[in-house]
């Protein structure tokens, strides 16, 4: 199994498309960092919703932790597309090259083959997140320094600012990245599932992106019947659940409670739902792949 995984990772590492995601993330993060370094006035755009309600010391707001939070807020919506580039190619890319039939004439069970491909997709996802963490968190910390994190939050019709002290932040980022890894693994499982049915990689990549877009739109519709009956079942409703780690609980005197989260059960339930999606999608991929006739 380890040897198979090594081979799979080696193949992924040799494909130019693998590095598109890393380049895209590096480009976006560096542009945002450079823009804020050059002109912190960009913050006014972000603060326009809360500026009337709260007095905010802008000089104190911009720091490494804040930059990372903002970058994650922007990027984690787009990363699924980048994950689909690799996971959507896993089976269909082999079919397109003709190597799938060669691979399947080797004495390896189909379950192992698809299992290794899924594992490799997860490793790719985690590698992408680690890369993002290095740039968005640690590079931002180096450029902008560290201070307390102010989290701006829209809660119903109200705006809210939560202050997290700098010694209470790092674990939240590790937790958020771990949560994001699970959320993005759903995308990898979806792309892999679609990849089983296709003979070229464009189809599953585009289909994955379309499904994410459609489900995101449905997740964001404020229609009661959808909110109640459909939204809870869509994985896209939980993709931004990582933010829950930054919604710190506050006591009766409106003072944030260090090391706390406002709603851990909601985060836990979101994780379970995401894991259920992964199980169903990967299980489906295995079921169909085992029975697939290789005709190409």
């Amino acid at each position: 199994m380890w040897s198979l995984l090594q081979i799979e990772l080696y193949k992924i590492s040799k494909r130019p498309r693998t590095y598109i995601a890393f380049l895209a993330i590096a480009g976006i993060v560096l542009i945002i960092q450079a823009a804020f370094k050059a002109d912190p006035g960009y913050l006014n755009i972000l603060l326009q919703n809360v500026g009337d309600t709260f007095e905010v010391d802008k000089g104190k707001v911009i720091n490494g932790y804040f930059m990372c939070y903002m970058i994650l807020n922007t990027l984690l919506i787009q990363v699924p597309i980048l994950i689909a580039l690799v996971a959507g190619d896993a089976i269909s890319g082999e079919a397109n090259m003709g190597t799938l039939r060669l691979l399947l004439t080797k004495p390896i069970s189909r379950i192992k083959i698809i299992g290794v491909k899924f594992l490799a997709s997860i490793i790719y996802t985690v590698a992408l997140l680690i890369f993002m963490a290095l740039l968005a968190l640690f590079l931002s910390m180096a450029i902008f320094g560290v201070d307390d994190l102010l989290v701006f939050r829209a809660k119903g019709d109200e705006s809210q600012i939560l202050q997290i002290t700098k010694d209470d932040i790092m674990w939240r980022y590790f937790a958020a990245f771990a949560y994001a890894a699970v959320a993005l693994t759903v995308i990898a499982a979806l792309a892999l599932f679609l990849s089983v049915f296709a003979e070229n990689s464009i189809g599953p990549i585009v289909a994955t992106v379309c499904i994410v877009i459609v489900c995101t739109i449905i997740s964001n519709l404020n229609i009661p019947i959808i909110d109640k009956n459909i939204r809870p079942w869509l994985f896209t409703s939980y993709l931004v659940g990582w933010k829950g780690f930054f919604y710190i609980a506050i006591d009766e005197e409106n003072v944030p409670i260090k090391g706390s989260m406002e709603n851990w059960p909601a985060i836990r339930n979101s994780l379970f739902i995401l894991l259920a999606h992964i199980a169903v999608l990967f299980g489906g991929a295995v079921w169909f792949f085992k029975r697939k006739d290789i005709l190409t």
Partner: protein
Amino acid sequence: MLDVKDLNKNFEDFEAVKNLSFTVNEGDVYGFLGQNGAGKSTTLRMLLKLIKPTSGKISFSGKNIANDNNEMLRQTGAIIERPDMYKFLSAYDNVNIFAKLSGIKPTRKLIMDQLEMVGLADRFDSKAKTYSQGMKQRLGIAIALIHAPKLIILDEPTNGLDPQGIADMRNLILRLSREMGKTVIVSSHLLSEIEVIANRMIIIHKGQKIVEGNVSALLDPADTVVEINTTDNNAAFLQLQNTSWQSHLQKTNKTLRLKMNKADVPKILQTLIGMQVEILSVQPRHSLEEYFLSLTNNDTHVEPFTN
């Protein structure tokens, strides 16, 4: 070595393979002959577990391959339709990867020896996408043979090759069989190709077996049809009716056809020359070849061939 019994494959309503049974013995070069769409590739893919049979049984060394824990695949090398490889990787990487996938731990020497055997050692580090079709075919062979399989399955291995490539492939198949003792199953839609490399063969048509047996017996020279074209075929036909060749004559509108032993061709020519018939062309064909050509040219129902 390989025993196929009552194999069937249906794709929805289409019956691609129907009750196909055949046996491949150890050391055979077994020719799998049929026109395009006859069911050759589907059958070979079922042997390689790429396609699941609708019904039937495939046994390798006495074990049903459905329950053999991939033992047959461990001892099989294959090229299906075209040589497959990772084109973004070098020849060395390709052979290395597929050796590992075949369950062996290849040394650098083993890989280089294999590439040397197919004449690619000097380009071992070049990406496969830079190779010519012939080089890809040779790399495909290196990949298929790296784990020293007992059984080699080659589906239309000469497709897309130039005449030199076709000759090289034939020689390689003969070497694999005669010098290395491998069992080879090779499919083709050309009888002439099977005739020169195989010792046993099967012809399938529309998914059904037409005939199976030893090539030497099936292509017995005593069972030849000679087509002779003259300046006046009708006159020549009438003249031959008054000779001892009468019983060999077959009625046809276009040419003279005689069913006879191939060794007697000079005699019939002498007879015709003696009758001052001007001969334009002579084409001896084995009756099996005649029959196979009739399959290719005629898509209507064909009765099974009887030798």
